[in-house]
């Protein structure tokens, strides 16, 4: 049992994270602080949520890039409508409406894929362009800084705060959403028939169908999950930054996908874990912080993400081939 733990991929990720952190800490001791940890978690909260949403799709063997557009469309539309109606209440109604919209969009995607057997990536490509185009043309194209009274100060609700070099760092209450979403997703994927079906279809679609798994039901579950997680992530981001933007997260889909793959989800589907995904996002977060602490221009960030992504993907492929 003990030997098994040390051989898991998640354990390897923890080691890698620690190694990178120690390396940066040796070069720049300022890196070693609770404040840095809180900063990384706060910045990565939304990416963790997005990655959780994408994980089931990747396990299913697909790649979707439209979740960022779902996040932008649902949050921005809700904000514009509520402001127009003179809404001054808290964030709860925002969450309910955003979830309703993102859930419906997820259902639409799942339905289109199961009904017309469309390629997941092809459809998401169309969806991504269409949804951003829709929100920018029909809803609005400007970032909105006007906030209902109930939302002002929400981004200062800390669970814990510590003093750090750059002022105050803290753990925001939105951290709890990672916890709730992570546990719920983990239980769903590991302990329900529907969750297991996602792994089965991702490993071998035709075998899974012959075994009797209901493909349609899986699609109609996976994509709404992705939609809702994207919606929640988008709203969290907007409320934290106190600005609602129609181009929210545009172009960030690659970073999220890279995090999911680095977190151990198989690029061929059929494999992946919630905890690994969490670590994968942190890994990207630590790398980007490392660039700052090592005084490497942040312009190199994309190249680093690209190289790490390719390295992980090649490693994964070679590993599965030798194990066979």
């Amino acid at each position, binding site marked *: 049992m003990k030997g098994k733990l040390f051989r898991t991929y998640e354990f390897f990720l923890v080691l890698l994270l620690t190694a990178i952190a120690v390396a940066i800490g040796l070069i720049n001791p300022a890196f070693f602080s609770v404040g840095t940890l809180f900063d990384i978690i706060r910045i990565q909260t939304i990416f963790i949520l997005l990655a959780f949403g994408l994980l089931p799709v990747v396990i299913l063997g697909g790649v979707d890039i439209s979740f960022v557009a779902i996040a932008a469309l649902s949050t921005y539309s809700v904000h514009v409508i509520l402001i127009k109606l003179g809404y001054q209440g808290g964030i709860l109604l925002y969450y309910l409406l955003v979830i309703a919209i993102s859930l419906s969009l997820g259902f639409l995607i799942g339905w289109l894929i199961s009904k017309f*057997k469309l390629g997941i990536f092809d459809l998401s490509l*169309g969806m991504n362009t*269409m949804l951003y185009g829709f929100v920018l043309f029909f809803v609005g194209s400007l970032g909105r800084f006007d906030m209902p009274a109930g939302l002002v100060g929400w981004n200062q609700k800390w669970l814990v705060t510590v003093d750090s070099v750059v002022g105050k760092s803290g753990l925001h209450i939105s951290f709890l959403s990672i916890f709730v979403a992570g546990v719920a997703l983990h239980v769903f994927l590991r302990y329900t028939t529907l969750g297991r079906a996602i792994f089965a279809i991702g490993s071998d679609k035709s075998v899974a169908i012959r075994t009797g798994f209901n493909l349609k039901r899986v699609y109609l579950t996976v994509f709404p999950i992705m939609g809702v997680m994207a919606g929640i992530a988008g709203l969290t981001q907007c409320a934290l930054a106190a600005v609602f933007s129609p181009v929210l997260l545009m172009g960030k889909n690659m970073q999220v996908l890279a995090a999911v793959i680095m977190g151990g989800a198989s690029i061929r589907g059929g494999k992946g874990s919630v905890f690994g995904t969490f670590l994968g996002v942190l890994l990207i977060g630590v790398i980007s912080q490392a660039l700052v602490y090592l005084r490497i221009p942040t312009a190199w960030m994309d190249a680093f993400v690209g190289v790490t992504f390719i390295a992980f993907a090649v490693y994964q492929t070679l590993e599965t081939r030798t194990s066979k």
Partner: protein
Amino acid sequence: MEKKQSFLEKAKEFWNINVSKSRTGQLILVLVGITIFFTLLEPKFMRVKTYDSMLLQMSELGILAIAVFLCILVGGLNISVMANANLAALFMGYYILTNFKPESTPQQIQMIILGGIGIALLVGVIGGLLNGLMVGYAKLPPLLATLGTGTLFTGIQKGLTGGESVTGYPTQLEFLGGGKVMGIPLPFIMFTVVSILIFIMLKFTQFGYKIYMTGANQTTAKFSGIATERITLLTYIVAGVLSALTSTIVLGRTMSANPDYGLATYVLFTIFVAVISGSRAGFGSVANVFIAMFALQTLQTGFNYMLQTVKGNTYFRDFIWGLLLIVFLIINYFANVKSVEDN
């Protein structure tokens, strides 16, 4: 006694075989249809000027679309072509800027530009080699492999330039992006020549035949003695070369090497062309890609005419393109269902 076919029956037979059942026929029909539609809406549409700019605009994307088409044909996909082209344009630009001096004679500048094209081709080949090794030999899923390399190419370019465009080239370079040979824009000549060469390659060479075989069924191809890994690698290298050719047009037309150029839209458009031309692993023809590209450009130009007075029309166009892609994907589904039933 053999019944003589009436003209109507002959026409119907011709229609069935060459138009309604063949993708090329359908595409030409669609192309003619949208051209008539836009001409009725806006009589200015049918002008030499319109076609002049259309031929210029469609060429960049057209060459990239052929690159993506080849990768789809061999059983893969390539979404790193534009990033590869941008990186090639950057190095071509660097080469020209380091060698170009204000006192250079026109002949010297020509040689410098030719050298730059050579550098661009080299970057294209290296990019294609990387993709080909990952897809062909390491057996990575093509979508993810090229997503990774695309991010890497753009990342390298952003790192080297800090995300800025690199400009300041000799004006002679503009010829590559919009110069005219006998009244026809040079980029369009390049697009046509590339189309014809790839057509010949696919139709009349062993390599082309093997691409179809590998795409249609890799296992069968392998057992028939085809080195599928090498065929895949070479196909991605050809795609890299085509990216490099595009980079020379882009650099000549925009006179700047920009890491973000075209990245937001080209994946959608190249996949769009692949979808409407009916290309998939082991099936498809360059002729269809060429006509599909023409249809896409006609739509693009038509939208521009119709929407030029609408505020925020680029957003509306994005909305329409996304919607159209989804609609055509669904149409493709029904077409495939029908063709399965027919057989």
